[in-house]
């Protein structure tokens, strides 16, 4: 919990229904100022749905998602458009299936992420056409920020290559860097380690810890790779069939019988006791 009292992200009674299917049911959890929170659960547990609700891509059926900035200003995310959440509430995200601008260069990808800053500096394009000084300076600063992130993710040499030509791991890292270029307070990563080899996973852990240390932001991640989850998260929320079954520090969650049952399966008679009561497929 942050020193200020209010947690950065507060999800209360979040429910998302698609027709008759309840993807997320009455989920509540909190993420503090600089915590790394992992959202785990078996396939189809509703993790990405939670992400889409927090980042505004879905409008939740019920519930409240509040993001409190350090200055105390609250943002009710469930009421905001997706692009406003990124712009004003400062929540950035990546996607499970990488969504880079494949036909643009690595550098351009990072420049697009700074659209709102640059747009303002270019006087909403009108002053920019005449190369106003403010825009030139903002442009230089934007490129410096790109250079910083490219150095951080080890892609400085490939800055002028098309993003679509990067190897898979590079694309994953670039997507994280692109999200960070929006200068977020909360970074949501949807399976950042998917498809990475163990060495790349280890590098990713380091990158995420670095980001947290240097930029003092909170991370929310969905991950199946337990070496990432257990290695870096401060706090784990476990979902199964849209219902929260466990919530706590890694050591606690690791030994929670409900989690073990959800992941490893149980004998028939045990399941009859209603471990996953309330959820439905």
């Amino acid at each position, binding site marked *: 919990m942050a020193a200020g009292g209010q947690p950065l992200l507060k999800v209360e009674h979040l429910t998302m229904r698609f027709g008759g299917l309840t993807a997320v049911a009455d989920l509540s959890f909190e993420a503090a100022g600089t915590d790394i929170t992992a959202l785990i659960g078996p396939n189809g547990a509703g993790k990405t749905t939670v992400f889409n609700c927090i*980042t505004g*891509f879905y409008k939740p059926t019920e519930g409240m998602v509040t993001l409190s900035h350090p200055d105390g200003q609250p943002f009710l995310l469930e009421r905001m458009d997706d692009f406003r959440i990124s*712009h004003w509430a400062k929540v950035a995200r990546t996607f499970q299936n990488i969504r880079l601008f494949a*036909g643009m260069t690595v*550098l351009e990808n990072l420049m697009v992420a700074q659209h709102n800053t640059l747009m303002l500096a270019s006087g909403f394009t009108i002053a920019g056409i005449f190369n106003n000084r403010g825009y030139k300076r903002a442009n230089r600063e934007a490129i410096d920020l790109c250079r910083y992130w490219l150095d951080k993710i080890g892609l400085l040499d490939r800055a*002028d290559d098309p993003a679509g030509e990067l190897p898979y791991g590079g694309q994953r890292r670039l997507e994280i860097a692109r999200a960070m270029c*929006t200068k977020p307070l909360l970074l949501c990563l949807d399976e950042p380690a998917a498809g990475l080899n163990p060495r790349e996973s280890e590098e990713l852990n380091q990158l995420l810890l670095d980001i947290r240390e240097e930029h003092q932001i909170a991370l929310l991640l969905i991950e199946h790779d337990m070496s990432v989850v257990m290695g870096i998260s401060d706090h784990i929320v476990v979902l199964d069939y849209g219902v929260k079954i466990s919530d706590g520090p890694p050591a606690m969650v690791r030994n929670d019988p409900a989690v073990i049952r959800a992941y490893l399966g149980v004998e028939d008679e045990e399941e009859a006791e209603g471990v996953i009561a309330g959820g439905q497929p």
Partner: protein
Amino acid sequence: MAGAPKSNQISAVAKTLDPAAMAKDLLFTAILSLVILGPIVGLKTVPATGSLALEQRWGTVLVLVGIVVVGRLIFHLIAARRPASRAKAAKPAGPGVDVGKYLAPILLIIALALPFIASLAPSQERRLVDLAILMMTYVMLGWGLNVVVGLAGLLDLGYVAFYAVGAYSYALLSTRYLPQWFGDGILPWAFFVTLPIAGMLAALWGLILGFPVLRLRGDYLAIVTLAFGEIIRIILTNWINFTGGPAGIDAIPRPWFFGHPFDDSANGFAALFGIESKPIQRIIYLYYIILALALVTNFVTMKLRRLPIGRAWEALREDEIACRSLGINTTNTKLTAFAIGAMFAGFAGSFFATRQGFISPESFNFMESATILAIVVLGGLGSQIGVVAAAIVIVGFFEVFREMNFLKEILPEGTDPVQFRMLAVGGAMVMIMRWRPRGLITRRDPTVYLKEKKAVPTELVAQGHG
């Protein structure tokens, strides 16, 4: 036609040159072409007394089927000789050479010097400059549409609507409203006063079209924009009190040279420079106006590409959802693309009105939209120099066919070679799309770079959501 269904199976058959399989294929080709050509060519309705009579032309059908079968046979024989691998077609073309870097300055010099080049051939001068004006108009329209289709990736089939808005804005303002409001003294300046107004009105209509189509993609977007183009044309045809209906608007003032008309009066352009007054002077002046307008279009578009708005357009073409996740207001981004594209069409429309001196809804039919879109697609989406090349090819093709009088000798009695121009343009398009599916110029230049400017191969560039 004979070589159209090049399935791998058939080419595999051809490679071994198995006579039985080939005969079977040829028989199939013959039956297929008979089925297709039979009703189309074999039966012809001719007017008879009081009704229609059927004329049967089976001889012609047999000749055509024979041509198809022979063509198919030739295709087989050629395919059999070719090396087995079809890797050549599958190989990505790579970024391609930077044609624009060398070609653009050369083209610019030619464009600037064109009236002087044309004056070397006095008998053809008028025709050449007229043709150049036509090409330049299409280049400008292509560049304008390139913003919407090439950069933002929004398929607009009704682009001609904005061209019409620009043309009618100029025509109505200059013939009716400006003289009414400011008296006839405004006329020498009418074109330059109206040009920005026409651009703004067209941009406004771009926004009006933009709003309802914001949520549409692909085919749906294409249909709605197509309908929009037709709506504008039909309104122009039917709102007779305002637009003059199908009769159009005539006596649209010609542009003056900064307050000097192009005639032999004492205040005229010729008198100003102390030269002999000739009609060609006005045409050359028109040519330089459209050249300037086109260059402004190009300059502004290239500039916008390097600004955040242009980058957002291209990002929108690549991935709309990712754009939204980065805080880009995609609604505004799409609307600005529509509005800016429309504005350039509005400028071109005003020019069209002043050049023709007469406009009617006839000039703004779907064929115009299709031609402009064809120029953008053939040139290579998003490529400015590609648009120039494609405009020269397509407009040139149309004009060349007007001149092919020798074709009249070969063709049967009563057929005009001009009628074949659409066929030829269609054929040329099929060829280009077969060998250069992503257009003539297939490279995308990055808008910003750290060390070295490397082109992005078009295979990676998205074509937008339709």
